[in-house]
């Protein structure tokens, strides 16, 4: 096994960011490929780690930061974290590649005065050294074994997201970046308050020590605080209002990563609250399920009414994030594993769906769907990618979201109570709304006659392969995991099913 593999996975993107920052003028427009190379390397490392964990050998690395006082950090890759980290990293790699062309176009629009001079290279490099802190943050959160480290990486994500939004976003981008940061801080403060409460009772920041708080009356408040923070991050109704703005106005090339940014909260909830504080968490289950179902329906209805290309997937994220929470709230091994598998499936689907919307905007420069139509004739592959993204979100086989839904809803019905039964059936019917908006918008954007303006525009065609290929790769990955879901489920099993069985 390669030494310090987890540390490398976290810090290689940061190192690549540093190289891009320092040598931006020498690298020029190759900065994107440096980022991609860094992420390709970490993907290989993750593959190595993945198979190691799959064989039943979790990885643990401890690094001493200070001798006196004794401060050290521990990184852990078990079945749960490696699956999350692997998919997140693949998405970063795909979107890093997608951005190579896309961000150039964005700079052209935002900073036309810099085109052809050093300013252009500066902005291009700027995007990539900021972008690379997403994989740093995601890997950090995935592998963190203590709460301070987790908090640190969460804040890294919020911080760098602010700059990416403010520099490369769409309309009112600075205002939206501020909203995003304020909500990020809101979540972080609740999270931190919960962490402080846990520390006050356990005397440790280690996640593996949280279980010692079980049964403590303060466990309820610790869970509540962290849960509020994470619900805001997941954009569960009524704490969802940041999502349409932030998702709609950010640069499309980081769309999938924003979905991860929001949805990784589901992983945190399972890792930090559900598994260690199983008994104390039970009381929250029904409320989470009700909120989740409301959000699923509300988010889908909101999506159906959208006219802005970028707001469509934005509102869809609200709905889709809630699926994972529904599974987690049902509190059975199958529902939790299904919920987390759905989280992974959703971020893949959302990356494809959102990026396909980005492709349409990229080629047509139109965001209002009212002025679109018939693009399937000119952009057939994009149409297929868009539809596939929609199907990935709607849980249509062979995509992994179908297997995730089956496992999750089997777990929900496994509760065996009337409440679970009713919520489960409503949840299944809510999927119908996802199917509806997927096919509805495919029709509006890609089917029907081409408007004259678009028909006469010779520039409208399928985008370059460097933008399409990463999305097709994600579609294939999702289909592969849908055909072979055991791969992920066997990783989850020792962490979740076994842990719950022992409670």
């Amino acid at each position: 096994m390669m030494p310090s593999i987890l540390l490398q996975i976290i810090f290689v993107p940061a190192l690549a960011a540093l190289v891009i920052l320092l040598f931006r003028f020498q690298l020029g427009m190759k900065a994107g490929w440096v980022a991609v190379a860094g992420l390709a390397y970490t993907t290989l490392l993750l593959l190595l780690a993945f198979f190691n964990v799959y064989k039943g050998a979790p990885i643990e690395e401890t690094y001493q930061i200070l001798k006196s006082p004794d401060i050290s950090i521990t990184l852990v890759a078990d079945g749960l974290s490696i699956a999350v980290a692997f998919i997140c990293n693949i998405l970063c790699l795909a979107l890093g590649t997608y951005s190579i062309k896309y961000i150039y176009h964005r700079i052209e629009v935002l900073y036309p005065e810099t085109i052809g001079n050093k300013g252009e290279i500066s902005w291009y490099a700027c995007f990539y050294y900021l972008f690379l802190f997403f994989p740093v943050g995601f890997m950090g959160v995935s592998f963190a074994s203590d709460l301070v480290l987790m908090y640190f990486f969460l804040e890294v994500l919020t911080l760098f997201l602010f700059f990416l939004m403010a520099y490369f976003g769409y309309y009112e981008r600075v205002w939206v970046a501020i909203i995003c940061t304020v909500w990020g801080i809101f979540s972080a403060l609740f999270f931190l308050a919960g962490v402080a409460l846990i520390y006050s009772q356990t005397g440790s920041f280690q996640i593996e020590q949280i279980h010692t708080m079980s049964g403590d009356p303060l466990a309820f408040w610790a869970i509540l605080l962290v849960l509020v923070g994470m619900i805001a991050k997941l954009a569960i109704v009524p704490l969802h209002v940041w999502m349409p703005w932030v998702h709609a106005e950010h640069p499309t090339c980081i769309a999938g990563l924003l979905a991860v940014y929001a949805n990784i909260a589901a992983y945190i909830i399972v890792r930090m609250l559900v598994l260690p504080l199983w008994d104390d968490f039970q009381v929250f289950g029904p409320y989470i399920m009700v909120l989740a179902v409301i959000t699923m329906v509300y988010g889908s209805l909101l999506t159906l009414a959208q006219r802005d290309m970028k707001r469509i997937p934005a509102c869809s994220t609200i709905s889709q994030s809630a699926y994972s929470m529904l599974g987690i709230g049902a509190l059975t091994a199958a529902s939790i594993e299904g919920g987390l598998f759905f989280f992974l499936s959703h971020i893949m689907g959302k990356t494809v769906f959102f990026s396909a919307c980005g492709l349409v905007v990229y080629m047509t420069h139109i965001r209002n769907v009212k002025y679109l139509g018939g693009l399937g004739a000119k952009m057939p592959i994009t149409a297929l990618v868009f539809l596939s993204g929609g199907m990935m979100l709607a849980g249509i086989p062979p995509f992994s979201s179908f297997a995730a839904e089956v496992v999750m809803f089997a777990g929900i019905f496994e509760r065996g109570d009337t409440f679970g039964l009713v919520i489960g059936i409503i949840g299944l019917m809510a999927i119908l709304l996802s199917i509806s908006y997927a096919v509805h918008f495919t029709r509006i954007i890609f089917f029907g006659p081409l408007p004259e303006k678009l028909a006469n525009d010779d520039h409208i065609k399928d985008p370059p392969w460097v933008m399409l290929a990463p999305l097709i790769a994600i579609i294939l990955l999702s289909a592969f995991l849908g055909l072979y879901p055991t791969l992920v489920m066997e990783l989850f099993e020792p962490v979740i099913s076994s842990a719950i069985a022992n409670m």
Partner: protein
Amino acid sequence: MDIQLAWLCLIFPFIGVLVTPFLARISTTVMNFGAVFFSFLAAACAVMLFPLVFSAENLPLESQLVWLHTPITVSFGVLVDPLSIIVANVVAVISFFIMVYCLGYMKGDPGIMRFWMLMNAFIGSMLLLVLANNLIIIFIGWKLVGLCSYGLIGFYYRDEKKYWIGGPEPYSFDKPSACGVKAFIVTSVGDMLMLGGILIMYFYAGTFNVLELYQTAPEWIPAMAATPGMIILVSILLIAGPVGKSAQFPMHEWLPEAMSGPGPVSALIHAATMVKSGVFLIARFIPIFYYGYWTAGVEEAMYFFLIVAWIGAITAFLAASQGLVALELKKILAYSTVSQIGYMMLALGVAGFSQDLLVKGYAAGTFHLMSHAMFKACLFLCAGTVIHAAHSIYINDMGALRKFLPYTWLFMGLATLSLIGVPPLPGFWSKEAVLLATLESQHMMLFLIVLVSVIFTAFYSTRYFGMMFHGRQSRHIKQELKKPHHHVHEGYLPQTIACGVLAAGIVIFGLMGMRVEYALYGLFETQLVQDLAHSTVLSVPSFDKTLIMVLSISSVLIGVIPAYMFYIARKWDADLVYERSRLVQVVHAFLWNRWYINAFYNWFFARGVMGIARFVAEKIEIAVDTVINKLTPSGVFGLSSISVWFDKKGIDGFLDGLAYHVQNSAGGTLARIQNGRIQEYLALAVIIALIVCGFFWLS
């Protein structure tokens, strides 16, 4: 080897999907024949499986791989039993002929590669559904079939006017892309509910495997029955899927619009495959609920059969009545399909009504599925040829086409006679089997409804056939004939061959009708009674079979004779009857508007959901967004302005004011003390000293 054949049967069409783009690179012809070849391989495998039904005691055969083993167990495998063999043969063989027909029909279409890929994917998915050994894999096939049909119905996604259906003017038209969306969403309603039913069943049974569900029914059915209402709920959820997919009431409204796809697609979806999947699945569920009621004594299990039977009967009547007035040829055939599937559902439903009806009802439903697949595929393919020839989708734009399309007239005539139920064609035998099972169930209301449907079927079938091929040429046909390169003639050779083979099949199948019926009866007796050990009683016919034949033929004549007089002999004038009778006009409007069900669904579901969505987006969301993202920051800034005011006026003001007053009043007063006169300083010091001493003395 037999089980490998089953695997190959479902794998070949998917291989066809994958290789089609590569074959296209060689040449279009290679791609065309390549795509058809893979459907041929699937059909060949299915046919090679067929001999197994003659040794039913060796069935079922099963082969499986583990798809998922944690946290739930799902295997991926095939199940070869009499039902799956029969339906797989129906699907694969008829699909192959439809593919052959497409060689001519789709010639030169720019989207031909997409078409072949979707067709093969559709066939493969359907075979997956039929041959799968467990409910989740069946559901995967089920969803894939829906997805492919979405692509095929909306095949002409550019919505050119020539592909619109509906009308004629001034009535509204439907565009292909909208029709595909409607079909997919409506069928998905049933799909999602059915998935819920399957998962609830899994909770009790602990397995998705079909055979295990049958075998372990004695354990889990009573457990499920312990929760009052649970079996009824599960029944409704499970039936919802087939109701949606097979376009049964109340989810039947998608099928008429699904005609916007190419002609062979209609044949594939509405004859051989997708709409039959619901019937197939009901047949799969029957042993479970039959066991529940007749062996375990769970009263609620009877609701499954009651619901299925009533849905079948209502749909048979409702759709047939709509077929009476429709003018679009493919839409009439679609109504007819919906109605005929109602017959199958009815037969399967009554199978659970008594112990002597299990095999009878089951065999009748399956028999009608087989015969209907054959004659309806033939009808749709012939319809495709006629529509192409006449250049119109409306039967009132046709007329006297017999001399231009003699072969199509013959083939479609045979298929129509079978649909009507004329002996000795297969439709007669299978319909008679359905009628007999219904009559023996002693539910006279169901029997009357289905008998009236037989009359309607005979009427609308004679009507469309007469309006197409007999009488006078319509003005439209006359205009078409004047065009130099008109198409008012037979289609390409592959089209005629495919229709001819199916028509020949109808005749042969009809001549063997009685034998097939008995063979099916024996086959299902082996499967249901011997293998699954369902308790049945010996069938003692309550009614003479001759009575059924008389009733059936009489009903046919009641429908055929007036239609013949109106549309073939033209002795009676339908327009005159319409103009003179207010009642006929009202009934016509009611039926033309599809009982207003479609309009109600559009208003309630389509507009209703979009209305709610707009309300959520434009009212609720904007209000919440304004409060949280706009008013809250404004509030915070408002509070900060109070803070600024307090800071300026309160703290700053107090200190500044204090300083001012200290400077101007207190300062001035105190300044008077600092006058430079030492004696005054001394006096002041003594006074202060006395005050301090006095203070201490007093305290």
